């Protein structure tokens, strides 16, 4: 689903991501863990095609991000760590804008907006301008918009930040649903308990380099993910 091979990204003298390789298969929830500034966001943005890698190759569903970014983007959805959305639009206008860009038909979009809006209890607020939304509401709207076109791959940067416990639970269920249907999720998080319970596979990044990856059992063994992470960070 997502194949990252020898990704390297530099910002001036600083190497943010150094020769990173990851392979995410259909049906997998893949967690991405690392301290602040480790290179998680850079990796995610490169996978989406926002950042141009200095070296390496990224493929989404077998299509090269470098050669055909638009075709890749049709298969995926991305939610950044701080979902800054168009404050000048109402929630519903934003969702319709996203649906228009992805070519989602009127019937399908209406059904999905109703379904996910109700799941996140955001439906009554969809007529409000996004500028009046709280951080959590923006996060919910970003999640709904990501699910709107039924993507095969969802890339999320810290998706649980700002969500209330009920919305967090809903999101976890939705993530599992995507994977059960043959899709894949690649997300970064600082909440190790969530990663431990939710992820099929996990990768730990430190100073731009991948230091461990694999199934949850392979990475943590008999210890907790937290103790393994702290040990590796030292």
């Amino acid at each position, binding site marked *: 689903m997502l194949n990252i091979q020898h990704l390297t990204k530099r910002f001036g003298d600083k190497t943010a991501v150094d020769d990173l390789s990851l392979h995410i298969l259909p049906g997998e929830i893949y967690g991405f863990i690392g301290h602040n500034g480790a290179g998680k966001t850079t990796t995610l943005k490169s996978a989406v095609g926002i*950042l141009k890698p200095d070296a390496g190759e990224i493929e989404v569903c077998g299509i090269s991000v470098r050669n055909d970014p*638009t075709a890749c983007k049709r298969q995926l959805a991305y939610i950044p760590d701080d979902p800054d959305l168009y404050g000048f639009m109402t929630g*519903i206008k934003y969702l319709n804008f996203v649906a*228009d860009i992805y070519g989602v038909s009127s019937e399908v979009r*209406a059904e999905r907006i109703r379904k996910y809006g109700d799941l996140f209890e955001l439906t009554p607020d969809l007529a409000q301008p996004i500028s009046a939304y709280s951080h959590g509401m923006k996060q919910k709207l970003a999640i709904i918009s990501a699910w709107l076109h039924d993507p095969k791959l969802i890339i999320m940067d810290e998706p649980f930040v700002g969500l209330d416990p009920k919305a967090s639970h809903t999101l976890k269920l939705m993530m599992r649903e995507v994977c059960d249907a043959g899709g894949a999720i690649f997300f970064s998080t600082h909440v190790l308990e969530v990663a431990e319970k939710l992820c099929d596979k996990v990768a730990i990044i430190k100073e731009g380099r991948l230091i461990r990856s694999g199934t949850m059992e392979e990475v943590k063994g008999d210890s907790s993910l937290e103790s393994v992470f702290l040990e590796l960070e030292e």
Partner: protein
Amino acid sequence: MLKALIKKELSQLWSVYTFDSKKGKRRSTGATIGFALLFLIMFASLFVMFVNIAMALSGPLSEQGLDWLYFSIMGLLTLGVGVIGSVFTTFSTLYKAKDNELLLAMPIPPSRILLARMLIVFLMNLFFCVLVWVPAVIVHGSTGLPLVFQIILLFVLTALVTVLTCFLGWLLALITSRLNNKTFFTVLLSLLFIGLYYFLYFKMDSILKSILLNSSSFAESIKGWGYPMWQLGLAATGSVPSMIGFTLASAALFVLTCAILSRTLLNLLTAKHTGKKAVYREKREKQAGADAALLRKELRRFVSSATYLLNSGFGMLIMTAAAVFVFIKAPAAKPLLEKIESALGQIRVLPVIGALAVCFICSMDCVSAASVSLEGKQIWVLQSMPVEAERVLRAKKRVHILLNIIPAALLTAAIGVAIGADAIEIMLMILMVAAFLWFSSLFGLMMNLIKPNLEWTNEAVPIKQGMPVMFSLFGGWLICAALLVLSLVLSAVLGSKILLVICCALFALISLLMERWMKRRGAEIFRHLT
């Protein structure tokens, strides 16, 4: 405690000179000095303007023994300038201060917070009153008791201005807190103020003349409807009972305002009227294509921001107003135009000049020059979507053209009719303006892609202060000026129609080259902007 509050308010006031709120950083020493100098120049020029007004009124009214009327009029002007000048700052100082909750959480009585803020409002109002009242006093040249009274009246008038601005500021706070469409209200209010300013600026001379011509009847009527102003005039000319009466009445109003505000401050500062909350009702939305969605998004961005509308859309307003004006006044201007034409020579060049004049105004609308920067931190939305960057840029270009084309075509046609151009000439003029709009939309976009700013905290920065906007504005003007010179030179050998075709071809050629750049380099820049 009060001292600390006043110190905080004063340092906040002073920070206007030392801190650039739009860029969110401290000004350099040079910039602070430059800003202070600019302020001084502005103060001096306004001071001189009011000296002129005072000089125009003082002599004639004194000769008729209507000194009190002179001070009444200058007092009225002081109140007007004071209110217009500081109503918005009073509104933000008293009702919209960002540290309301911080201060209210501290063990400070609300009345102290109000007192400190009222002092700042009073100081700001004093500045505007000095601007008008001091020239009035200097020009009149009174001595003795009247001079003492006039000096005291400066502070009395400031207190009155404070009362009025507090009331209007409260009204503004009430209206804006209940409005759903704040952009429309802001634009409307700004246009009203601009209209009022220009109306008074152009009419000032005739207003002054009419006052001087009908001074006796004006004096009689002011004694009726403007009783307090009559008393102010008498007080300024040395009448002790009027001075006591006017001062006491003003002081009473000031104390009453402070008392009311002090009692209701807590409610005023913490009230949150968010207007009627719109509740979503499901309705069937039509599916649109990606290009239409992008175009709608750009249009929505433009109309949702008062700053964007007023700064990048002012040319559209001028063009629409000018089209109506030219259409109405065309017959009166015909002799003048014929004179210009004959002075320019045998060959008609007025159609080219007319079209270039429209292009000149079009340059003021830098819609596309700010559009990339305005994506700001939301640029990830478009970058992560399956839509080619060139289509995004095309939508930005189209909005620029769409917004301008109708007012520009209207004005061009009106000018064409006014100068007696034939149908082909008018058509070519409109075509040239359209070609210019194509060029300017791409030029602004190109400048913005080369010099983007996505890190702004206040949208006024990319809209008003960005390099792309400056380049787009002055670049457009420069090209118009160059073409004007070229047309005047070539008009000796070429007719207006050929000149118009040449200008059209030139703009189209440059635009085609820029389209090529946009598809390759421009799209690549946009795709990876961070």
